[in-house]
């Protein structure tokens, strides 16, 4: 190997600084969430304790944190499943031109770039004007899909752009029905990317704020609850909550990465060539 150029070290230093910038604040509030009972929102630490975490688990803490966590979790799973199913179907459909396909494509792009407050406001208006009660599982659910679906679809487009079609043709030649072809040939090949789509679906929903603001009704999701806390909580309890949800996000991301790694390994062990259907 040739020696590294001097620019490598400069860029490596820059990259390290970038990571510090990216993670530094998160690590800081993680440390501060262990403040002693008398500590404030900034350093110095006045002792080390689990006081603020205990506060979260006690009933008298502000609002309904655990209820909102449960709602966010259920909503995230709903959005995740829908995003995966609809993205796969959409991805399959977009392999051929169909009537309205370019309009639909531009709608997907619009959905991605539209300011989120417009979705919130528009969906909220439709619901209120037609006399329906806004609820996180109906209006909130739909509003979040406008954010997760474009990501799912863009991933699917990228996947199908690289998809080797001869595998499907082979299946058809062997007499597989269209459903069998999808179930036994297409889905196994694209499986790892589906895990990616699921990750996007869940985490983007779990953290979404703007689109749920006017569409979730009287029961808050977790980000809404946290935002409510920022205006009236001035103790490190908010850092404790932030640390916990970030830990939860990391756990979810780690879980998804682990599943990807595990499926890859299983494939290799079984000598499966499912992953090779990409060109």
């Amino acid at each position, binding site marked *: 190997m040739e020696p590294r150029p001097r620019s490598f070290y400069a860029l490596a230093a820059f990259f390290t600084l970038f990571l510090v910038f990216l993670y530094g604040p998160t690590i800081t*509030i993680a440390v501060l969430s262990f403040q002693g009972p008398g500590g404030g*929102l900034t350093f110095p630490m006045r002792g080390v304790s689990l006081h603020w975490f205990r506060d979260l688990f006690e009933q008298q803490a502000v609002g309904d944190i655990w209820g909102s966590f449960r709602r966010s979790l259920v909503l995230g799973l709903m959005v995740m499943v829908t995003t995966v199913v609809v993205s796969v179907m959409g991805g399959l459909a977009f392999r051929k031109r169909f009537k309205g396909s370019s309009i639909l494509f531009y709608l997907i792009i619009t959905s991605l770039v539209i300011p989120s407050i417009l979705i919130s406001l528009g969906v909220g208006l*439709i619901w209120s*004007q037609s006399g329906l009660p806004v609820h996180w599982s109906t209006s909130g659910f739909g509003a979040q899909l406008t954010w997760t679906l474009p990501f799912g679809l863009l991933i699917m487009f990228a996947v199908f752009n690289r998809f080797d079609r001869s595998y499907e043709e082979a299946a058809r030649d062997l007499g597989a029905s269209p459903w069998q072809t999808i179930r036994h040939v297409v889905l196994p090949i694209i499986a790892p990317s589906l895990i990616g789509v699921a990750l996007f679906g869940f985490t983007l929903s779990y953290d979404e704020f703007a689109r749920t603001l006017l569409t979730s009704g009287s029961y808050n999701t977790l980000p809404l609850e946290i935002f409510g806390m920022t205006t009236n909580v001035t103790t490190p309890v908010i850092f404790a909550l932030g640390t916990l949800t970030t830990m939860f996000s990391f756990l979810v991301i780690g879980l998804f990465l682990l599943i990807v790694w595990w499926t890859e390994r299983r494939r290799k062990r079984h000598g499966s060539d499912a992953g090779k259907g990409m060109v």
Partner: protein
Amino acid sequence: MASPLALILAVFLVAPIVMIVIVSFWGATEFSIYPAFQFDNYEFLFGSDVTYRVFLNTFKYASITWLFTLLIGFTVAYFLAFHVRSLKWQVALFLLCTIPFWTSNIIRMISWIPFLGRNGLANSALISWGVIDEPLEWLLFSDFSVILAFVHLYTLFMVVPIFNTMMRIDKSLIEAATDAGATGWQTLWHVIIPLTKPGIMIGTIFVVTLVMGDFITVRFMSGSQSANVGRMIQNDIGLLQYPSASATAVILLITVLMVIGILLRFVDIRREL
């Protein structure tokens, strides 16, 4: 196969836009809104110089954030794509850059407080080094903190597409440039940057639209002291002035779509996936 997608987008994207356009012509009293067809909301909007100032401020946030995210994002992507040698490390470091995207934006904003506050880390460090005597007041709740948060939240929207296009550049092109006697800078300027343009454009679309449509970062990081268009809309919503919020939203949407329209002339998204 595309019908569930079409249905969802029809109900939750097209219908809300149509609804906002309709309501933007309605009237409002202090407590309720009523159907009408009047241009009052738009007249008021265009007649007030607050509107122009707020739109200008929105563009200011967008362009400054764009500049910083581009410079940082490009450098990071360049390092990952051309200086990290094994694919394993590239993937690992790339993941490290993208993980924050899957965590909560609000928490990432909150986490700046202990840094930037009056008694925060930045101020105490600067005081202990003797750079300043008094804590700086403009670190938190200012334009500075708003843009810092934007850059913090959205740089990875630049890193990902730029890295993606850079990974597809044929390495022999760079060798050819070196063999032809180009310096590192010349290769960067005449080979890598032109080939990375599609990625830069996609990143730009993300960053510009996210910043222009934002209301929560500005509200939180400026401590309600600065405004952008999103804040203006949110204010009206808070006062139950939905028609006037809708009119502002319509103008914002047109502005954003115009910006995107211009940017899309430089890149074919479907080819870049």
